[in-house]
């Protein structure tokens, strides 16, 4: 049937967009641009790589394993799971000045803080100081929600498994032990300490925890984590915060203390040291290892050779590629060069 109604103005718009004629720029990646580009990138990478490599080289690291698997290890006696409140001492020496500020890490291996179930086993509301969730923690915290029908605060696997070895470092000067002051402030993220984790607005803090129990694994309740500093208790205890920021990989280290004060502000002088360890944390059941790491940092953070080497390799590859391209270019003459 003949279509009768015919609008007069249904002619398509003659605009650049509808006619697919928008002005466009067509990038031409010609050898003339690529070769200098590669050279430039290569040189820049090599430069950065050298800087990274040199910096990384200058970072000092001292790693001490204190798991105590080996029989001759001072901590062997403590590795027995039945030993309670076991203390052991690791002796070590430093040949030359360990440039300050020195950072004191503890490390664990084969420890999967990234288990999905483990990771979700916490109650963010509780940790932000919401009292409602003190008496009624979220089910996410399973299997550490209630202990004997009393709510656990802080609940959940992550909090429950908080690292509880403690360390004291002594410099041995002429046979005498001189304690190295360890600074426990500023080891956690500023935002974690100041915003994300909050204690309930109750003074004294312990009253907020009435009717709750401490996590099963803990020896002390949350409000008594740091007897020396009342501001470092509850959910904003720095060690707790560091622990709660879960590690990405099964072999990880976490910041324990900084050595920034007194005689050691410039670093750890050469000499003999003794590390006194309160050995509490069981790792042998899952074939883990425990270690302490002393390290200083630079602008790029801790020691990491990978980045420098990667930059150097890629940089040189770029230069090599540009040379190859130049040869190919000279020999075969890429067609259509503007």
């Amino acid at each position, binding site marked *: *049937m003949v279509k009768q109604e*015919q*609008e007069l103005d249904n*002619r*398509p718009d003659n605009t650049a967009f*509808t*006619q*697919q004629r*928008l*002005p*466009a*720029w*067509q990038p*031409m*990646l*010609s050898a003339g641009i*690529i070769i200098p580009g*590669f050279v430039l990138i290569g040189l820049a*990478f090599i430069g*950065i790589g050298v800087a*990274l490599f040199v910096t990384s080289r200058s970072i000092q690291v001292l790693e001490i394993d204190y798991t105590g698997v080996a029989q001759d290890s001072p901590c062997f006696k403590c590795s027995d799971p039945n030993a309670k409140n076991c203390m052991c001492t690791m002796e070590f020496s430093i040949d030359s000045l360990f440039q300050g*500020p020195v950072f004191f890490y503890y490390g664990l291996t084969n420890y*999967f803080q*990234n*288990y*999905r179930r483990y*990771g979700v086993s*916490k109650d*963010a509301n509780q940790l*932000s100081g919401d009292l409602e969730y003190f008496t009624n923690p979220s089910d996410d915290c*399973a*299997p550490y929600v209630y202990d004997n029908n009393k709510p656990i605060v802080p609940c959940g696997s992550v909090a429950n*498994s908080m690292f509880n070895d403690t360390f004291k470092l002594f410099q041995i000067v002429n046979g005498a032990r001189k304690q190295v002051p360890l600074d426990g402030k*500023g*080891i956690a*993220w500023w935002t974690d300490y100041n*915003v*994300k984790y909050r204690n309930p607005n109750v003074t004294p803090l312990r009253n907020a925890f009435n009717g709750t129990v401490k996590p099963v694994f803990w020896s002390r309740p949350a409000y008594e984590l740091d007897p020396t500093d009342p501001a470092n208790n509850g959910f904003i205890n720095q060690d707790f915060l*560091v622990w709660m920021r*879960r590690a*990405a*990989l*099964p*072999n990880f*280290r*976490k*910041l324990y203390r*900084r050595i920034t004060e007194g005689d050691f502000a410039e670093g750890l002088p050469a000499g003999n040291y003794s590390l006194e360890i309160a050995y509490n944390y069981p790792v042998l059941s*899952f074939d883990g290892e425990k270690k302490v790491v002393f390290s200083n*940092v630079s*602008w*790029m*953070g*801790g020691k*990491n050779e*990978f*980045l420098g080497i*990667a930059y150097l390799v*890629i940089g040189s590859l770029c230069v090599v590629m540009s040379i190859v391209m130049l040869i190919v270019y000279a020999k075969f003459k890429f067609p*259509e060069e503007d």
Partner: protein
Amino acid sequence: LILGLLNRLDITQILRVDSRTIYVGHRACPANEAFIPPKFCDNRIVSSKYTVWNFLPKNLFEQFRRIANFYFLIIFLVQVIVDTPTSPVTSGLPLFFVITVTAIKQGYEDWLRHKADNEVNKYPVTVLEDGRRIRKESEKIKVGDVVEVEEDETFPCDLILLQSSRDDDTCFVTTASLDGESNHKTHYTVPDTEKDLESLNVIIMWSQSLGPENLLLKGATLKNTQKICGVAVYTGMETKMALNYQGKSQKRSAVEKSINAFLLVYLCILVSKALVCTTLKYVWQSKPGQDEPWYNEKTQREKDTNLYLKMFTDFLSFMVLFNFIIPVSMYVTVEMQKFLGSFFITWDKDFFDPEIKEGALVNTSDLNEELGQVEYVFTDKTGTLTQNNMEFIECCIDGFQYKYRDASSELDGFCVTDGPVIYLDKWEELFLRALCLCHTVQVKESTEQKVLQPPQEQRGFIASSPDEVALVKGAMRYGFTFLGLESKSMKILNRNNDVEMYELLHVLNFDPVRRRMSVIVRAKSGDTLLFCKGADSSIFPRVRQEEVERIRMHVERNATEGYRTLCVAYKYLNAEEYAQADAGLREARLALQDREEKLMAVYNQVETGMSLIGATAVEDRLQEEAAETMEALQGAGMKVWVLTGDKMETAKSTCYACRLFQRNTELLELTVRTLEDGGRRREERLHELLLEYHKKAVQDAPPVKAGVTRSWSLTNQDYGFIIDGATLSMVLNSSSESNSSRYKNLFLQICQNCTAVLCCRMAPLQKAQIVKMVKNSKGSPITLSIGDGANDVSMILEAHVGIGIKGKEGRQAVRNSDYAIPKLKHLKKLLLAHGHLYYVRIAHLVQYFFYKVGETNAHVTLLQSQRLFGPLYDAAYLTMYNICFTSMPILAYSLLEQHICIEVLLDNATLYREIAKNGMLRWGPFLYWTLLGVFHGLLFFFGVRYLFSNPALQDNGQVFGNWSYGTIVFTVLVFTVTLKLALDTRHWTWINHFVIWGSLAFYVFFSFFWGGIIWPFLRQQRLYFVFANMLSSVSAWLVIILLILLSLLPEILLVVFRKPRGPHARQIAAVTPLSYKHLKERQ
């Protein structure tokens, strides 16, 4: 009045045997007859799929029948029910999005179909009811209604002709829109009908069956008859036209098919991965101390659940964890791309036709990319290739060529282009008189009062062959006007405005064997003349040979130019000769036995010893640029088949004119005529011919070179194949089963080696049969059908892509097509430019998604291998990744990309071949992109992993945790994925710039925003300040830059080394660089 209609004959050789009883005008049946009126369907044509009410359930059902959607639904349900690593939102939101977008799109398309249906269904018609004429909507016609149709109107349903305004109880009808035959057919009223329908009160029972000559089919058009009345016998979906449609099935594009294939592979990988992971998990857990380290004790519920049930839920969790291996967002993007992309076709002003004031129409956007994959083009002839508008071009009289130059000036127009300028001599006048007399044309009675001298050009002629009309009109332009036939005498108005009368003594009818026709007339002067016109091959042997040579040259030249040529000859008959001929003719006509043979013998006897006057050249006006379009299509590697209901001669000359057949093309004919040549049984002959042609075209053809997909090239002998409907049905439905499939194979093989195939005398369903046959042949090539009439509908529906032409033959084709264009010439741009671009766009879109999938997939797998069971990224990132961060650039790319600009695509049809056979979505590219993605994924993961071997990345010695890790990887991912696309983009418009840089900026902004606020509705503030902290670390910056560059540098190298080479490279490269400057100049 009861009509009994028995054994209704169908044109399509499909015998519908049924009988129905109809009460004309719904008059009450006589009381003594216990007759229950049967229920007939109403006259509505329904091509839409949904109604307002069933849209939601039906559409949802259809959508979830798609494997991918169903799969995502399952995943979503698993996520809701089982405790899984990722939240249900990550898959639920995208799924909801997909379903909504698709539903909106399909709803819109169905709305368009509703609109088109309404146009037909609401068309006003006149119905006679109780003696009154009532205007009704077409859909309200019921079986038994008496419908009145006026001239040039289409019949709204199948009617039995009761009354005609013509005196002789006939009416003329053209069925051009049904079967492509454009000539006028005569239909007869049912005999013995009461003339006064309005007061009809007599009940007559017909006992004889009504023939097709009484039946007016819906879709046909009334011609040359003021009005008719008919009773509706078949309505709506029961009409012949509707029955000729085939069920409208969902068309799937090749790209979609290959996507499905790839997804199936992915699905297998997914399942096997989940299986392997579950196994590994339990193997690993069987080691002491690993199953349940003390710090991560199982919950009571976990301890209680059955081991096997746990394994199963673990398996499901792994499935969910890996589920983004199947990219739900790809479906969204593909849907959006198709939906939005199709607007560019609608908007294209090149498709706008000022005559009908309409542009292109897109009925389904699912097939955009299919336009770039077409291998076979099936085209209708009448109205598609040709305008079905014959025009007298030139003639040649006595060896001199005359060309009509200027239509407006009468005398001067007729000028001689070669030879001396001569006055109008005897030969010319004789020639023109011959043209005026030797035909079977009727003069159309003007609807107004009979004006003796109607405006000459407007004078209407009717003939069974449009050629005759063209000739008569041609003669009219030179001053000899045929006025009509009045009581056995033909009236001619000659140059001097005198009316000449010729008594028509005999008409020696045209038949395809003789290929000529003659008339014997007696002039006023008493001379008896025989005028004969016919094909050169049938005239030349019957005239004096010395005349032939002069004219043969012209005829041959005209033929190669694609004109339809006829030769005209005459002879004087003296009284004896006439008497003899007259007696012979009369005797033969009255013969009871072998009348045909006898007539033929007399004809042959009479038509001898004539003298050749001249030749004519008539052009069946091709559609604008038809030849160029066909040439471009063939250049693009498509094979063009012409399927027409028209006569072979006509179709053949059209093929020549369209340059489908070239002068050196060898024609292989398989028609009734060639079958009858041998004088043996048709079947045997068919067998013989098929084998012979097969040998010629297939076996003797030079072997196809490896790598060249098209077997024919310029050096080869070109073959053209011609087959007609009757022979085709012999080939397809051969008597013995074994032969049938063998013939079919032979036939297909021959056709595939021919440059062009012409199938003439096709019934509509046969057209569809052919398309189906080719579609299902080896390699399942992509087919395209283009047509303009209702007779093409079945073929349009059958082909992968159906194109309707908004021609004069109604709207059926347009409504059932996938795309409709106003003119044939638009096909070129539609395929070569739009199709090509859409294909490249969507192919790259799909590849890109496989790349993205490979990337994320690699991460997740690595997480497992590292025995990290947590998710790497935050749920917000996961959800946003495909919806916001990386979707817009690829969508913009897939809408705007022009890797080669449109002009170049149009100029170089061969470029089309480069993407033929789904070239960009085969297993090779699929593997390449997936592996590239996996490679990038590995790179990012391990790069960041080695960085995190010491997680103290800040200069204050603090350590980064798992969310920082994930965020670094994710940042690298988002940037690389976006920049990779930027590298692949060859056509940077401001939109691309905006979207690419915009989404990167959005990512950064979002990350700050998301991490900058404690969100009260979130259970876990996982990303709080993670991003900002990351940016405060130099190492994080350095590793991000390193990884991005490392993954993209090889790409850049590849681009440099993979510069276009080969014969076209230079040409393309020379035109390709589009700059703002170029484009501005061009506008």
